């Protein structure tokens, strides 16, 4: 019995060891020095009709590891951009492999940038690959480039090592500026596939300052179905973000009795409630709860007094109402329900929605709305009045 027990234990141990060897996934084992880590993907319209031009940004791990500040300037670039044109994204990416010595690895991709021309011709076909590929993630940030996506990705980064990372960080900054929406691939596809809501994505462009190229994220690309139909500037974007309850933090510039002031929006919550009247009029009730603070102010009246704070509240409320009105009017121009009004209706009025759904494009233009803004001011800053020379 004891020998048998020992033999069994030995067998079990041997089997376990064999399994350790086999279970590590030998066929899919990938070492860091055999993979090409993609940190950004760009999709442009190809030269030939119907083609797509894929640019992948691959991190050059070797060079970024030994980045000594002194030698960094002379060194090889920390990334490599590879471009390939093809009739479909996966086809192009596979063809690209013949130019890249290492295996293209998508799991660490940070951004997908879509060129404006591409966006205008419809992007559902090119996004399919990024949804289907088993290693790609849906939490990737999606942007639309004003111009070519390839150019955006080859604009060298200033503070980060890789343009892909820089773009991701720029998007993250929108948490405190709210001048462009923060959109993941999942958000985008979720809104694109539904009839009751249209997709939107942040815009990125190259700006030249003092001879240096910088990337800038500002505004929104508005989609209808899968095609880009228009743009929102920063002002309209803020209004759109308020309606969607996506606004996080941001600043507003107002003039109160000739006093210039920057108002910080510290928090904004929107409740959107649809109402369908018996005559078929669709009404959207928006109720905003905004927390605002005084960012700075110029010469004029001291805004940091209880009476003047009321004026600040009114100014903030008016500004937000104007932003929302501008955003909704412009969206109606584009016939694109990026706010998800239709989705709200389908949820709260499922019966009526069935009839509305077919003619929603027309109905969207006739949607009425009212906005109620409730502003709470919060002390911000360490001064109680503005600085003025006596």
């Amino acid at each position, binding site marked *: 019995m004891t020998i048998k027990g020992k033999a069994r234990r030995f067998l079990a141990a041997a089997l376990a060891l064999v399994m350790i060897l086999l279970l590590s996934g030998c066929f899919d084992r990938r070492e860091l020095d055999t993979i090409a880590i993609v940190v950004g993907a760009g999709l442009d319209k190809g030269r030939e009709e119907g083609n797509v031009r894929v640019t992948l940004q691959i991190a050059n791990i070797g060079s970024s590891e030994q980045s000594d500040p002194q030698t960094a300037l002379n060194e090889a670039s920390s990334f490599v951009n590879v471009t390939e044109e093809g009739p479909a994204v996966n086809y192009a990416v596979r063809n690209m492999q013949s130019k890249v010595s290492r295996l293209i690895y998508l799991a660490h991709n940070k951004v997908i940038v879509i060129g404006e021309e591409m966006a205008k011709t419809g992007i559902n076909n090119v996004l399919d690959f990024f949804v289907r590929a088993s290693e790609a993630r*849906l939490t990737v940030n999606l942007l639309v480039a004003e111009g070519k996506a390839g150019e955006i990705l080859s604009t060298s980064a200033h503070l980060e090592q890789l343009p892909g990372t820089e773009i991701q960080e720029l998007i993250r900054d929108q948490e405190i500026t709210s001048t462009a929406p923060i959109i993941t691939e999942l958000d985008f596809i*979720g809104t694109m596939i539904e009839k009751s809501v249209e997709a939107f994505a942040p815009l990125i462009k190259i700006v030249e300052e003092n001879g240096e190229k910088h990337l800038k994220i500002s505004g929104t690309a508005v989609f209808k179905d899968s095609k880009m139909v228009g743009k929102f500037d920063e002002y309209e974007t803020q209004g759109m973000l308020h309606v969607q309850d996506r606004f996080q933090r941001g600043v507003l510039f107002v003039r109160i009795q000739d006093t210039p002031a920057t108002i910080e929006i510290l928090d904004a919550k929107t409740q959107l409630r649809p109402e369908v009247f018996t005559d078929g009029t669709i009404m959207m009730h928006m109720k905003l709860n905004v927390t605002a603070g005084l960012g700075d102010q110029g010469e004029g009246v001291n805004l940091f007094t209880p009476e003047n704070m009321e004026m600040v509240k009114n100014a903030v409320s008016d500004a937000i109402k104007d932003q929302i009105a501008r955003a909704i009017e412009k969206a109606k121009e584009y016939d694109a329900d990026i706010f998800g009004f239709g989705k709200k209706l389908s949820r709260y009025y*499922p019966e009526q929605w069935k009839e509305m759904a077919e003619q929603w494009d027309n109905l969207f233009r006739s949607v009425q709305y009212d906005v109620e803004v409730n502003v709470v001011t919060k002390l911000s800053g360490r001064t109680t009045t503005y600085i003025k020379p006596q």
Partner: protein
Amino acid sequence: MTLSPNGAGLRASECGLVSMLSAKQLSYASALFIVASSLLIKAVYVFSLQDSWLSVLVAILISLLVIGVYGMLGRRHPGMCPVKLSEAVFGRVVGKVVAAMYIFFFLSLAILNLEDAGSFVTVSILPRTPVTIVYVMVIVVCAMAVSKGHKMCMYSTMMVILVAFIFVLNMLLLFNKMELENFLPVLTQPPKNYFLAIFGLLMLPLCEIFVFMIFAPDMKKPEIIGSALKGGIFIGGFLLFIIVVRDIAALDGYLQYTNNPTFSSIRLIEIGDFLTRLEILYASILITTFTFKISVCFYAAIVGLARLFRIENYHIFIGIFGVLIVVATRGVFESTFEHNEWKRSAPIYSTLFLIILPIIMLLVSYLRFGKYPQKRQAASGGENAGTDGGNDDSADYNPNRAPGET
């Protein structure tokens, strides 16, 4: 039941009352069984979209009725596994045919579940690994579990608690991505869709725990197998409910497009920059629970076969059937498309074994044996059930218990 007062009547061997399954252990084991398939459900979302949570609740309620039928069978013929049960109810010839059908069903469950586990691993984690390697690895572990017999169910409590903990953790981590509004509107699909969703849930994760009837002879109190399985439905159904609620709240419209909603929603977890890529937790739970599920089906098939042919030691079948399962799994579907097609008809296939046959068995049992089958069977003297050696010692604490096997 704890140790019987007349412990002297116990067998001296290791198969005594002490190492038998308690109702609680069976409950947790069947809950784990339910969780395994819950991780891969997709059909319910296709049919009932954001109302899937309602379908789950209704399916749980209906499954309790179905489990009631199993429970009645278990009470009327305590300690009988499906093989013995069909022989006892339908007589020798028909009974053997039905028993053989059940054995085939258990075997097919093992094969289909192995296919499921294998395709998950190759599609989501290791796309270039030959799927046979995955099958062989899983089957080797299953064979080890099966050789332990019914003891494999004893430690599932720990696993269920672990799984529940991970689910709750996942849910908390996904909280920032969830929206309660995603549950609206309620009840807008055509009734047919709800029927299909509920039917699919009923057959695939919930009532499949019929397989656990194979453990009836190994229970301390075989009469209460019905309530033990109901306990399993409650625990497993609750976990299923959590999964479905989380997926709906987190995924919204994308729910219909993804192949594997649970996997997709866990992939969304991103807390800051550091707490990401938690799907490995999900993958390990899935592989573990599927290994357990396949073990149970594997065990049910070969033990059923051994009992059908009155072979004392089922161990001789482990190797040969392990190979058979791997080979059959290789050939069962040519592609994922075929697998998806099969998933539509799978509930109908299962209905025969999980609902129709048990109900027929119950009816025949009533017609043949009346209200108290134990007495009638005892009187008819080993004609149906008592042929392979009585269980004299257990008769001490349950005089009405039909002669079965330990």
